[in-house]
């Protein structure tokens, strides 16, 4: 998030697109509902009628995969009505004319056709976002999990730049990050193209810096992404995998392919986890890890706040903290630079090589944490980004011209419905933790295919009955729930339940830049189980 969670209270307009906040980020969802009660205008764009719609002032229902058209249509309306923040654009932005020219394609007729949203509703949302300021925009994986996810994010940024809703309190481009430390795993360089603090591995100075710090020679070649790793294992190019705390058999698109890869007999596969997950069962060695309650450390939330976790109880059995395990493997291999006695020592090393974490230490984050960038020990941290000037080399925000790209799979006679994935309030990701909490399992114990009454009628599906959902990659068996939440032509499933592994049928088509799979748009058909 460019801005902070607490700033939701001060926003006059809150625009939530591609995020099911009350399910996936419930405490932020609570805050949005409170803000709406206290006078903020809440705008919701989502293919499904999510719970937040109950308190929204305006709800629009674009077709899955049509976000770029919707957002660029909003930009066009704002320019047509001269509602843009021209002073902000002139002073702080670049590439405006190229961007403006690319809006020619997004005529009202085109936007209506692609999104299925009447132009007057597009205009209403755009008008409010552009004029009732400060306006804060929030999105999640409904924007990113597309083969054109990067374009969607650029479209979001264009909208914020155009209206000057960035670099100020209670505004911003605010992606809601999923896992408790997904922001931190990215910050720490748990990505194939960057060292800690987003220092690119292909830049020679960065490589030299880390070679000096770590005393080893390193590769300047960008590594493989999540999806590519499984392709490489399948093809026999990667022969050893060290997997910590993940369960891709349930979470990766086209998960059947993940299973086929991990069953490659030439692979040496080490899984490190707190439970023997579906994926860990395929490992050669499984290492028992301590849970979050059994170890010390820090994690970074969606608003870049670095916060402590603390050891409250001893690790169960012979399980060990993950930092200890990785250090031991390195030391067994005869390596130096892994002889830490406590996570606080590791954090000190992080601060020494990661400029945006330069001022972070366990001592400084004892009570409420610090938000990065926090460059030195006197830096109070950063509540919101891009204040005064943008965090780019020339200080300018860059408009990006865009064109509409359709999803990799579109519906046809054989696969007439779009399947989109979402999350339950009661479970988390592959649910290895939440399904072991009896009460959560009681509140939500099985997968449902949600589909509209019209589609249920057309395909002869009764509420509650077992169906099979087919895509071009396979089928899953699941019970059907007929509900108005889904519009005609769109159905949805979560991916929490190993009994109905949704991601065995989702589309692994990747965004060319971010390499994110298109799990939000899969063409499917639904059949009764005979």
């Amino acid at each position, binding site marked *: 998030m460019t801005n902070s*969670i607490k700033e939701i209270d001060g926003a006059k307009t809150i625009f939530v697109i591609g995020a099911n906040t009350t399910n996936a980020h419930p405490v932020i969802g609570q805050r949005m509902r409170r803000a709406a009660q206290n006078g903020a205008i809440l705008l919701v764009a989502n293919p499904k009628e999510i719970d937040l719609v109950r308190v929204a002032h305006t709800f629009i229902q674009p077709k899955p995969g049509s976000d770029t058209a919707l957002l660029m249509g909003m930009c066009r309306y704002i320019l047509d009505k001269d509602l843009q923040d021209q002073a902000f654009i002139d002073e702080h932005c670049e590439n405006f004319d190229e961007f403006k020219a690319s809006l020619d394609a997004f005529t009202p007729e085109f936007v209506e056709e692609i999104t299925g949203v009447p132009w007057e509703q597009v205009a209403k949302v755009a008008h409010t976002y552009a004029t009732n300021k400060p306006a804060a925009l929030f999105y999640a994986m409904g924007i990113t999990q597309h083969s054109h996810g990067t374009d969607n994010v650029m479209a979001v940024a264009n909208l914020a730049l155009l209206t000057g809703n960035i670099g100020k309190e209670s505004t911003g481009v605010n992606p809601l990050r999923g896992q408790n430390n997904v922001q931190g795993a990215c910050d720490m360089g748990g990505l194939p193209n960057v060292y800690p603090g987003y220092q690119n591995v292909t830049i020679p100075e960065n490589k030299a810096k880390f070679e000096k710090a770590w005393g080893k020679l390193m590769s300047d070649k960008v590594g493989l992404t999540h999806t590519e790793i499984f392709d490489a294992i399948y093809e026999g*190019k990667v022969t050893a*995998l060290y997997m*910590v705390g993940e369960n891709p058999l349930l979470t990766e698109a086209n998960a059947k392919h993940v299973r086929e890869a991990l069953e490659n007999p030439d692979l040496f596969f080490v899984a490190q986890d707190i439970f023997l997950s579906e994926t860990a069962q395929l490992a050669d060695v499984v290492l028992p890890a301590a849970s979050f309650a059994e170890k010390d450390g820090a994690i970074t939330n969606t608003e870049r706040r670095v916060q402590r976790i603390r050891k409250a109880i001893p690790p169960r*059995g012979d399980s060990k903290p993950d930092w200890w395990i990785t250090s031991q493997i390195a030391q067994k291999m005869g390596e130096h630079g892994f002889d830490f006695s406590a*996570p606080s020592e590791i954090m000190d090393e992080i601060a020494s090589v990661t400029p945006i974490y330069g001022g972070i230490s366990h001592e400084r984050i004892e009570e409420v944490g610090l938000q990065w960038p926090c460059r030195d020990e006197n830096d109070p941290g950063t509540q919101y980004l891009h204040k005064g000037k943008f965090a780019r080399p020339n200080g300018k925000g860059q408009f990006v011209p865009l064109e509409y790209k359709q999803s990799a799979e579109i519906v046809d006679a054989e696969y007439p419905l779009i399947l989109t994935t979402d999350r339950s309030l009661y479970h988390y990701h592959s649910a290895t933790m939440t399904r072991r909490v009896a009460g959560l399992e009681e509140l939500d114990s099985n997968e449902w295919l949600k589909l509209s009454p019209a589609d249920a009628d057309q395909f002869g599906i009764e509420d509650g009955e077992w169906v099979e959902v087919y895509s071009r990659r396979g089928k899953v068996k699941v019970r059907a729930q007929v509900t108005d939440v889904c519009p005609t032509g769109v159905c949805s499933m979560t991916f929490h339940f190993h009994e109905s592994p949704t991601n065995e049928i989702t589309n692994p088509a990747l965004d060319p830049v971010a390499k994110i799979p298109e799990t939000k748009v899969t063409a499917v058909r639904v059949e009764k189980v005979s």
Partner: protein
Amino acid sequence: MTNQINFTIDGQEIVAQEGQNILDAALANDIYIPHLCHHPDLKPVGACRLCGVEIDGGHMTMSCLEPVREGIDVRTDSPVIYQARKIAIELLIADHHMDCLACAAAHDCDLLTVSAYMGVQPERLERLRKTERDLPIDTSNPFFQFDPNKCVICGICVRTCDEIVGLGALGFIDRGVSTVVGTFGNKPFVESVCESCGECVVRCPVGALAPKKPEFAAREVQTTCVYCGVGCGIYLGISGDEVVSVRADRERPTNEGSLCVKGRYGFNFINHPDRLTKPLIKKNGEFEEAEWDEALELIASKFAESKGEKFAALASAKCTLEENYLIQKFTRAVMGTNSVDHCARL
């Protein structure tokens, strides 16, 4: 900076902030005034009729609704106030189910506090024509239950769901002595829009909304929730070597005292018997338990055979910063490849 207001409560000089009500100012200065329906997170409503005070010798007024004013003289007790409070509290207690020893709220019950302050005499309650209250307990939610026979109709739960959660799952049903708190259509909690966040449970001043399992912790440890990217501040309650409760951290800017159902109640996986407790090595297709040394030696020798582009690591968005840092350092510095990624895109 708001203006300071100087006034007296029972002759004590008090400094309060402009806009503060008399009850909050008294409580902030460790002066107790009986109350049941007041909660610092919620707008005051003056429903319980217990917090009455006299200002400058005038008529009794509800201190939760009365803003502080410069120079006023507040009396928290007088024969008139005592009589009014006594009737109010006796009516509340008259049909209250009193199984205090077994009640989840026994250690922290506002009704007991008020009763103790007022010196309620059980024999006086006998003269009241009691209503027979034997309403069914709603146990439909797996984490908490609602016993309307213990409810004091303070409305804190109703206002919490409305003002804090923004949901409005609860309301008052019926009128007068028949009034109960309930969901829309008075259905069981799980059949309503309730999201099981438990915000009402933690604010209930009595034992009407109470956790099903006892949550009494011997000690607490401040930490951060394990689930989503909001990063709510929590305190884990520990008894022995087990986590028995989760309480929200009111000081953390991320959540300011709020939690969701997973954060508050989703901790039992920690003690689940499925937890891995020994390294496992697959031999002839079956996992066998091993000691750490054996597992680590095996991994070290196998990884040494797959250095460079033959190696890949998946870091974890559930692990700490320090752990992710080490995994990528290991991948880059020891294994000589940048093929480290995690589930950021999933």
